[in-house]
């Protein structure tokens, strides 16, 4: 089959420049047909989602705002290995590692933890490569199902640990699992 005969939609028609017949030239029939189509749509069910009251449900793999996970005992999973920062194509992630002390055992799961963990949301492209790269299952984009909020200055888009890490209760209740 020649390529020009293939029609994926099954509705392909060839363009012709033949002269219009009398009935086509006075437009009336076609206009009435068209108006029947529009009036049918007039009474159709509307597909609008009334946004603030109704929201569209996100797909389960929707990549929204990042979360840094805690385990079931409420300890941060991140070990500040830097693989996420390395994987990030937009170089949006920075972190500073620190060593866990004795009295911080209940806070961090690993011996090394991220003292500072910042994601610049203006740089982030929400590709999810950090999530793939993470060996500790600490960072997720698919779990929050939230957008990044709007802001009025650039500094407000640098999200630190205060905004990224989930709360202890959420970790214990396994809300994000």
């Amino acid at each position, binding site marked *: 089959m020649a390529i020009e005969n293939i029609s994926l939609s099954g509705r392909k028609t060839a363009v012709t420049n033949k002269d219009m017949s009398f009935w086509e030239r006075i437009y009336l029939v076609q206009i009435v047909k068209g108006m029947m189509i*529009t009036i049918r749509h007039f009474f159709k069910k509307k597909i609008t989602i009334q946004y603030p009251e109704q929201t569209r449900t996100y797909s389960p793999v929707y990549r929204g705002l990042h979360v840094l996970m805690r385990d079931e005992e409420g300890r941060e999973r991140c070990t500040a290995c830097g693989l996420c920062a390395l994987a990030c194509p937009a170089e949006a992630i920075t972190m500073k590692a620190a060593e866990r002390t004795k009295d911080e055992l209940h806070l961090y799961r690993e011996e090394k933890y991220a003292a500072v963990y910042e994601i610049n949301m203006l740089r982030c492209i929400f590709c999810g490569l950090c999530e793939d790269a993470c060996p500790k299952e600490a960072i997720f984009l698919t779990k929050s199902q939230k957008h990044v909020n709007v802001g009025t200055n650039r500094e407000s888009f640098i999200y630190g640990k205060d905004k990224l890490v989930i709360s202890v209760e959420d970790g214990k209740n396994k809300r994000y699992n």
Partner: protein
Amino acid sequence: MEISFIIEKLVLVLIIFALTMFFALYSTLAERKIAGFIQDRYGPNRAGIFGILQPICDGAKLFSKEEFIPNTPNKLLFIIGPGIAMTVSLLGSAVIPWAEKFVIAGVEYVPQVGEINIALLYVVAVMSTSIYGIVIGAWASNNKFSLLGGIRAGAQMVSYEVAMGLSLIALVMMTGTLSLREITEQQAGFGWNIFFQPLTFMIFLVCSFAECNRTPFDLAECESELVNGHHTEFSSMKMGFYMFSEYVSMFFSSALISVLFFGGYNYPGMEWVADNWGVNIANIFALLSILAKTSFFIFFYMWVRWTIPRFRYDQLMNLGWKILFPLALVNILLVGLGVLLFK
């Protein structure tokens, strides 16, 4: 000419002005609503329930917008352009008969501003002058796009006026009168003119689309070619006036179509209501009936607008001169034959 007569007419003028404005105001909302519904959306529905306050918000917005006047030597013409457009479109409804005579405490009140025996000619005169607002405003804008839009509007209106006048002649040949009230009275009951002259109706309808500058004939403000045509340079309430005058003339021509072809204020069973429930009740129904017909035609205008794409300019001229004009002439011949045979 006594004072009470003048006061009565002035009050009537005010009422009809308010009615026209109300219809024009809500036409803007209806246009957007109908556009939405036809495109499977809801249209504006945030301001008030069903968006009922939307026109007021739009008005407030237009009033508070910056007033921009281009650097032109014709500032006066630039300012009066929208005014002329608005005034002329308001003039037409003076001769529309809205109902029969109301009788209140033995005094007859006629809900029609001017009962003149050349009403139909008056209507044509008003329509033929309605173009000045556009042309003068467009020329004074000192902008090529505006000028082209104005010239297009002018040429279009002059061409379609010919076919419209001829179709009206065919109608007048049957009715034998130019007075809109008499034409309405002849259609009492269900003897509407549309049943006798469908071809005349078609020609008149197409021409009135062109006269109102509505899609598919809105070449004056053809966005894809002329930015926004004759109101490119207008902002704030001047722009609002142009937009509004379009809706006002749409209201007027819908009312005219219902008077000429759909029996005006007549509705089946009018005499029965008048006999049993009183003249005034029958009249109120009559008023509602003409308003319902008018509203239907306003809806029809919008329905067509969201169905048919804009014509090309040469197609427009071809349709006007090569199809509608000969058709109107043939129509006159047919109607003449009909009048000779059946009257």
